[in-house]
């Protein structure tokens, strides 16, 4: 007999996020409720929560970069990124982001997934450059356009990462696929799997690249969407 009650935990997450409660609070409440509905005593749920938090500390290591970035921003790093892009002829927001997308995919395909990232490159370099390219072409930008370009910079970083990393043989997801299939007696090498990440990577480049060209066109037309 399958127990459907723990599914309520998922519903709590969806409702909590939709009603815009503080996400940390939503996640903690959903976790505890799910555990209780799964017939675990409260202290056990708390211990699992703490154990999971402790085991996943590596997720938060990236923040050690903030002091360096903050320090350089104090000396005008973002302004320099803007000045640099303004001096390159023919640089548009879309073209800049396309170059970044390709670069991010290729470098991730070599397994170097944390070389670029939101804190490492997007905030200090990519987003200011994308904004400067747009300002150079189209003058002062309205607030909505600024938000749009910043968000697109972050989105480009993520798409490049996701659809590059699986081409690398030893990335966690390829190893997970290999292990999951091996559990059913299907033996595959990482190479056989990572080859099949290439068609999706190309599609991702074409689809997201096309959207970036559309962004350029939209900026030229000066229309809001």
């Amino acid at each position: 007999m399958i127990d459907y009650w723990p599914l309520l935990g998922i519903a709590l997450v969806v409702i909590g996020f939709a009603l815009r409660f503080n996400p940390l609070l939503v996640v903690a409440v959903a976790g505890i409720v799910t555990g209780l509905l799964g017939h675990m005593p409260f202290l056990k749920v708390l211990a699992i929560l703490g154990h999971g938090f402790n085991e996943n500390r590596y997720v938060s290591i990236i923040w050690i970069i903030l002091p360096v970035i903050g320090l350089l921003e104090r000396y005008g790093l973002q302004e320099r990124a803007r000045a640099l892009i303004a001096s390159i002829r023919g640089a548009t927001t879309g073209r800049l982001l396309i170059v970044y997308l390709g670069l991010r995919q290729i470098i991730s395909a070599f397994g170097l997934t944390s070389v670029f990232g939101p804190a490492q490159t997007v905030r200090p370099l990519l987003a200011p450059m994308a904004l400067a390219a747009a300002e150079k072409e189209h003058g002062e930008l309205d607030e909505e356009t600024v938000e749009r370009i910043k968000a697109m910079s972050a989105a480009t970083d993520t798409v490049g990462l996701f659809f590059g990393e699986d081409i690398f043989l030893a990335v966690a997801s390829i190893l997970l696929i290999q292990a999951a299939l091996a559990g059913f007696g299907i033996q595959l090498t990482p190479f056989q799997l990572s080859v099949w990440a290439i068609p999706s990577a190309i599609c991702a480049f074409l689809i997201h690249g096309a959207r970036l060209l559309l962004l350029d066109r939209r900026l030229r037309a000066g229309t809001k969407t």
Partner: protein
Amino acid sequence: MINLHWLYILAGAVFAGFALGSARDAANAKRLGNVALWSLLAISFWFGDLIGDLGNGVLVLALVAIAGLHLLGRAAGETTSVEEREQLSERHGNKLFLPALIIPFTAFVGTLLFSYTPLKSIDLIDPKSVTLVLLGCGVLLALIVSYAWLKPPALSAIDEGSRLANSIGWAMVLPQMLASLGVIFAAAGLGTTIGALVGAIIPHGSVFLAVLLYGFGMVIFTMIMGNAFAAFPVMVAAIGIPILIHADGGNPAVIGAVGMLTGFCGTLMTPMAANFNIVPAALLELKSQYAVIRMQVATAIPLFIANILILYIAGFHL
């Protein structure tokens, strides 16, 4: 051997620095909350392995209370004005990029050196965390170079770091919280439940519909868990193996690899994947925390369709 634990000591020191920097920020009326948040994280990084699972659980509850009760203040404004920054950036020129580029460069070159040259065999760095360890080395190197060159006030790295940290706030902890939610979801048997639900609606006789359900299941379950890794084993066991591979004779390499990538389309669309979707919005100080997700949906949906077609064509017709 240098492993993740060395980095945890460094990260604990950085979070302790954020606590100190927040305490010095007299303009932030709620600074005690910020100090408490960063101090708890420093404790977690330094002593997480000593205080036991329950101790960590209590620590998590305290973090949640600080964020949930709105005890956090925003950072004070920037420490230099726009004009000053433009002057400084003019004076230092493009060399300002160098310290910023030291970090990715160290990670990039170092990873190549420690993965593909004889340096690999000296066992200096734990192979599982080479890039992260080198990223940490890059950060230290960049700090040293910046201080030697720019000669900033002694505590400015701490002040500037906590300025950024406090502008991101609780979002910095969210990815780690979601990872532990995933652990609870798994312990409560959610995977089995969802696998059984999906298994009950499998269409028989149509390969294309089965592929569509497999891909759709990957996307939805990934959106719930915030991570394709949790969804993959469940969907493979429910549909991938019994239907697509055994009954319909699909190519296992395609079903596996492209199935995972179809899940990644779901990762682009869910607030549960906070480190990719919510944190950048906070980091870029966007008005809506969902602005990045909104931008990604229009790539994710066509890419989902493309992946379904790749699954169907390459998996069954090549």
